[in-house]
């Protein structure tokens, strides 16, 4: 097959004509795509570091929230136990300070009164009996 010469190629290229811009084409500084359409078809380019940081933040937030839920709203706080276990009579005088115990404000509710100055045993429940189970054969 003989290749085209320059003249023939130019002649052929001229056959391909492009249309002019439509008369309705105007420049507007507002986006031409409607917000509704953009919400369905639009794209957002996120740099990788920003995307990774967002993912780590969301994952950490999720883990923390799951752990907080599994601990339960009524679970006793170790700080609270420590305060209740120390009574003014047991503690040496120099250790009894007027410093208020740290209060978990998120869990504070009308039913839970503030920590008393003296220990009250009204709501005290002893721990369930300790029943150890021996697994295996004792020779």
């Amino acid at each position, binding site marked *: *097959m*003989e*290749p*085209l010469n*320059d003249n*023939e*190629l*130019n002649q*052929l*290229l001229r*056959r*391909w*004509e*492009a*249309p*002019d*811009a*439509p008369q309705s*084409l105007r*420049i*507007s*500084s507002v986006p*031409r795509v409607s917000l509704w359409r953009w919400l369905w078809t639009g794209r957002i380019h996120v740099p990788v570091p920003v995307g990774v940081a967002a993912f780590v933040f969301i994952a950490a937030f999720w883990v923390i929230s799951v752990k907080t839920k599994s601990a339960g709203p009524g679970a006793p706080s170790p700080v609270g136990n420590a305060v209740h276990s120390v009574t003014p009579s047991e503690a040496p005088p120099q250790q009894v300070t007027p410093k208020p115990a740290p209060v978990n404000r998120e869990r504070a509710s009308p039913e839970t009164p503030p920590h008393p100055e003296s220990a009250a045993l009204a709501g005290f429940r002893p721990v369930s009996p300790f029943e150890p189970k021996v697994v295996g054969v004792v020779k």
Partner: protein
Amino acid sequence: MTEAEFQKAFEQYKNSVYRFAWRMTGSSSAAEDTVQDVFLTLLRLPQRFDPMRGSLRSFLLGIARNLVLKRWRDEHHWEELGDELFVPQPVDAATGDLARLVGEAVQSLPPLQREVVILAEYEELSLEEIARAVESEVGTVKSRLHRARENLRRMLAPLGPANTPKGLRSISNGTIK
């Protein structure tokens, strides 16, 4: 740039930018988007145009070229922009309209060859103007244009008069008979 100057530039060059984008993408909506973005760039950053470095038309075509290539990269993540692996395939002369066959041949060229062919053959820019628009050396543009024309010669060879049996096909009226 005043509003009147901008409107004048828009009316003067919108067709040129549109035709270039249309030939590069084959899509009228993509070409309209490109025209919008090109002139919005001119409206927002008129200081980027330096008359000492070339004409406004070649400057606008340069912006259009960058936008078209950006779009191409977004749509062809894993394809090479270069032309090392391109193998030209002759067109099938039996499949109709001559203009469409030529258009398909040009659009099948790798983007870097396609843009220089369109800027040189259709927009009639000089090699220096093309080099500024595509941000390359004149020598690079020259060799790209040469390779593009060689590829087109091979692809369009079946449409040449020497390869068209007389009485069966004619390209004189724009269609193959």
